[in-house]
């Protein structure tokens, strides 16, 4: 549902939206409701990105506004008794050897806005860390991110690691990076590849459901 907060957010009106959030908190509005508006705003930004009206800097601005709103909401959410519902879970990280994270972080912002639970393992993540986390939380989807071609062998090794641990069949694996193609995707053994978070989310929606 689009409301004032989500609209101000999608217009990237930084000062105005934070002011509006402060007002709502003061009024005693349910923080979960504000969180829903935030997510809606982020999803609207994602749509504008997909349409080609917004580019990466606009999405980064959106993610930054989102971060600031979350800071305002954090104490409210902690004291609130309602738990934030998430559907499905995704483990995501930049693979071993690659230290870039901007694309990954934007993807996480949109994935969380869409209501999915995300565990972010950070950058330069060794295959065995991915495997251990997957064993621990049994996610629906694993996202492997990389900016440079050197990520390819690490992606392959990580997916081999899932196979060896008998986890591959329970997972959907998507790889993200600007240089990826169908050939690279087949080589590493992933289920899908993407150049952009908005494409990636479509895939995730297809796998986990709305």
């Amino acid at each position: 549902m689009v409301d004032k907060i989500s609209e101000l957010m999608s217009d990237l009106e930084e000062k105005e939206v934070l002011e509006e959030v402060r007002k709502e908190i003061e009024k005693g509005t349910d923080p979960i409701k504000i969180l829903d508006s935030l997510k809606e705003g982020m999803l609207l930004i994602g749509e504008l990105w997909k349409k080609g009206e917004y580019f990466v800097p606009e999405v980064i601005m959106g993610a930054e506004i989102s971060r600031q709103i979350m800071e305002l909401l954090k104490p409210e959410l902690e004291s609130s008794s309602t738990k934030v519902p998430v559907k499905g879970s995704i483990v995501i990280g930049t693979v071993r050897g690659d230290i870039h994270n901007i694309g990954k972080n934007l993807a996480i912002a949109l994935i969380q806005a869409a209501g999915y639970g995300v565990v972010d393992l950070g950058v330069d993540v060794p295959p065995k860390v991915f495997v251990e986390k997957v064993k621990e939380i049994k996610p629906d989807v694993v996202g492997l991110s990389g900016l440079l071609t050197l990520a390819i062998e690490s992606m392959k090794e990580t997916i081999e690691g899932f196979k060896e641990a008998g986890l591959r069949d329970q997972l959907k694996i998507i790889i993200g990076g600007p240089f990826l193609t169908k050939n690279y995707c087949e080589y590493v053994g992933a289920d899908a590849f993407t150049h952009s978070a908005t494409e990636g989310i479509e895939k995730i929606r297809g796998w986990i459901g709305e």
Partner: protein
Amino acid sequence: MTKSPEELFGERCQRLIDVRNLKEPDYTPFYLLAEEWSVYYHGKYNVGEVHYDYTKCGEIAEHLVRTIPQDAWGGPQYIWPGPVLDAIGSNTYKIPGRDLDPKLQQQFPQDKEYMTPEEYPEFIDDPFAFLVEKGIPRRHSALEKSPRKEIAFAKGALAFNEWWTYVGSLVVKIIQEYGIPPVVQGLCASSPLGVIEDHLRTFPGICLDIKRYPEEVKAACDALVPVLVKLSEFVYEKPTPFPYIFIPLHIGQFLRPKDFEEIYWPSFKKLAETLIKDGYTPHYYAEAKWTPYIEFLAELPKGSVWIFEDVDFEKVDKICDNLCFGGTLTTDLLRYGTKEKVISEAKAQMEKFGPRGGFVLTANKDLMDPNDAKYENVVALAKFINEEYRR
């Protein structure tokens, strides 16, 4: 009858000058900017070893040009030597063997902001002074305080001098023995916005600045142009259209066209115009997707070379009769195609775009990782071009 290195050198330089001038050359120039890829291809050393002993670049370079003859080569400047970076306490680049697995390639994480938005006015007032007096000590920890900074600078400068002298001697050797010139000689860190983004504000930082302080960002870019002109031209004894000036582009291609036009483009265009007017050739490596900006590129004067990672080449061909372009060989093709497919694609590309004059046959990326291109594909392509296609 085989030609002498001197003859070959003359022909190759002429080819690369012709395409820059949009004149159809005798043959379409073929070159690959083979960076760390050439280390893996050589097979004897880790990249990390080369960062700490750059004399290994010699045998790696000779192996490359001997087995993959091409019209120009990338030079050994794909590494920043470890001793130079260590002398000044520099951590901006992560290098294999020191920060990363020695088998990997160097990376530029941009994990710290080295300028606050509040400092834009100071930067705009005198960007060179800001870069030297504030940027340097913040980015290179041994250059922060006296007396350490004087000693560290001296050490770094001497180590750099040794490296730079070595680069010069290796370039001369490859010219004298193989007749292959370097593609680039001048180094320009990036576009004006790219320099501020890469070395002061980081990518997320500059994106937010563009939204929050667009006028300051534009003014900062405009102020930086003379500094980058100086940097680009400094290594040349006199103006020359070849070797080209290497300019990697990291930020413009992520901006929406409105911001590209208002903030990024004016200083970019000014820098390009100045370099070209002064008699040089900016050689841009345009990463990511450039199709939304093709109409802007058409505004540039004749005399630039553009290597695109991902662009609508037909549109560039149609709209930009003012520039030389390349990047039609994708890493996907070079890595996963058969030898036959690589050769047939290359042939088709040369036939299609060669006649326009401003076309170079090259990959859409600097080759850094073994997965960027299969060795045998590249060897086969070079053999085809030199022994069959050009006969």
